[in-house]
């Protein structure tokens, strides 16, 4: 028997099939959570946004018309949640290293001398995964979200373009820049570890 599509599952849930929601939920729970976590950079906030996103899906399931793919809809909700969150954080006026200076394209972190991995990390055997995580966290928001949607959920460039609201070619460029930055970050690691 062929697997039901996301849209079919959501429709079934709207008609009262809780099992359909469960299937849908298990398809997306891990990539969505990781997208949110890497996007906001804080596990606690990611948990809140994760819950809020699914709550909205539950509330609006009946409104889903199937004009877009479920994944597009889900990640649009999640991304909007992240943007709202960031907007709220701006009120706090806490200078963040991820913020870009007015008129500048690069986040402040780009202008801070790269100290490389901390000695204790090197001595303690900081894993490649940790370093990749740090390199991803250091990416600018627009590149990071494209990278995460592509890497974690395996979404197509046109779908990512729909989610972030830019042309597909811009998405490809952002992905390429993100990979180049990661590449540099990992080169640093290789240099420091010999």
């Amino acid at each position, binding site marked *: 028997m062929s697997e039901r599509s996301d849209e079919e599952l959501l429709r079934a849930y709207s008609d009262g099939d*809780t099992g359909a929601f469960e299937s849908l939920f298990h398809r997306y729970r891990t990539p969505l959570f990781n997208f949110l976590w890497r996007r906001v950079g804080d596990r*606690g906030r990611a948990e809140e946004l994760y819950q809020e996103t699914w709550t909205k899906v539950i509330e609006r399931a009946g409104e889903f018309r199937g004009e877009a793919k479920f994944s597009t809809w889900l990640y649009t909700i999640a991304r909007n949640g992240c943007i709202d969150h960031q907007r709220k954080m701006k009120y706090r006026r806490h200078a963040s290293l991820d913020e870009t200076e007015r008129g500048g394209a690069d986040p402040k972190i780009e202008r801070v001398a790269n100290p490389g991995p901390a000695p204790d990390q090197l001595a303690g055997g900081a894993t*490649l995964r940790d370093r990749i*995580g740090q390199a991803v966290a250091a990416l600018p928001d627009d590149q990071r979200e494209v990278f995460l949607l592509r890497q974690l959920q395996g979404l197509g460039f046109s779908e990512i373009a729909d989610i972030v609201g830019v042309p597909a070619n811009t998405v490809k460029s952002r992905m390429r820049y993100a*990979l180049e930055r990661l590449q540099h970050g990992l080169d640093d690691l290789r240099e420091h570890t010999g």
Partner: protein
Amino acid sequence: MNCEECKEQVFELIERESVDPEGVHAILERCPECRADFEAMKAALAAAAQLAVEQPPAEIDSAILRAAEARTEPNVIPFRRRLLQAPPWAMAAVALLAVGVGVWSIPRTVQFEGEVGGAGRETKDVAALEDAIAEREDFDQARGLQAKAIAEPVAPVPATPTDEAAPAELENRVPARRASRARKRAATPRAAPMGADSAELEEAPSAAAAPSVKAAESQAASRRLARDELDAQADAYAGAKPEAEPDDKRKERAVCASKVASFEKRLRSERRYDPTPEEQLAIGRCYHTLGDTKKARIWLDRAAEHGATRKRASEALERLGAE
């Protein structure tokens, strides 16, 4: 294709989205620099695939699945459960209303037993009483006529058409009298219906039947009042019970419950967490929505201390106070 174009296409080639894969391959074969870029990009993608993946907390997953399940459940909750779930203030209001109705009904019953008078609410009951009295009078009159006919059967008086027609005439007179009373009632101003009715009651011609009829009337009136009281109580319950909540209200409560849960969790886990005035206002409103007035007041008070949220927080506090 030149090297610059090739560099732009390298990524697309790896992602199998290149518009000119042959052209890129040709450049890669002859240009070591482009080849190095290609290899670096492949290495970056391979490394990115090793990005650590975290699992969301199981308790949040359970909460989400429970919420999803609750969404598909029918809205109607059994009455007894709704009653138990009703907030204490609603229960108190219902109890107060029931006591009020009870207290209010006592003097009304006494009034019916004694002199009829007072507010116009009982017009309907008095009208019913009137009808009962009239029926009783008509019945008594008819019985009197029949008794007379039975008592004087041997009298040599020929049966007149009037006597023979008496029961039929009486039957005809009853609706006529009812209509007359109805007209009178309609003409009587509502503000003072009791005076007119009581005068009519005083004019009741069957003096002998009056005490027993009055007793019957007072019993009937008591029964009606008791029934009214029960109806009022049922209405009060109906008003207090959470009738299938509108969808948007339910959504608002769900969103608030989620926000409050997250907020409280954050408050517990982050020692340095200091909510912004906007957050204080939002959470105060959410507590209000969820019926926790104490916490709502605490956070709204805090939000009212800040210039940006003072006005809105004060308004919310006023609404809270009004409830």
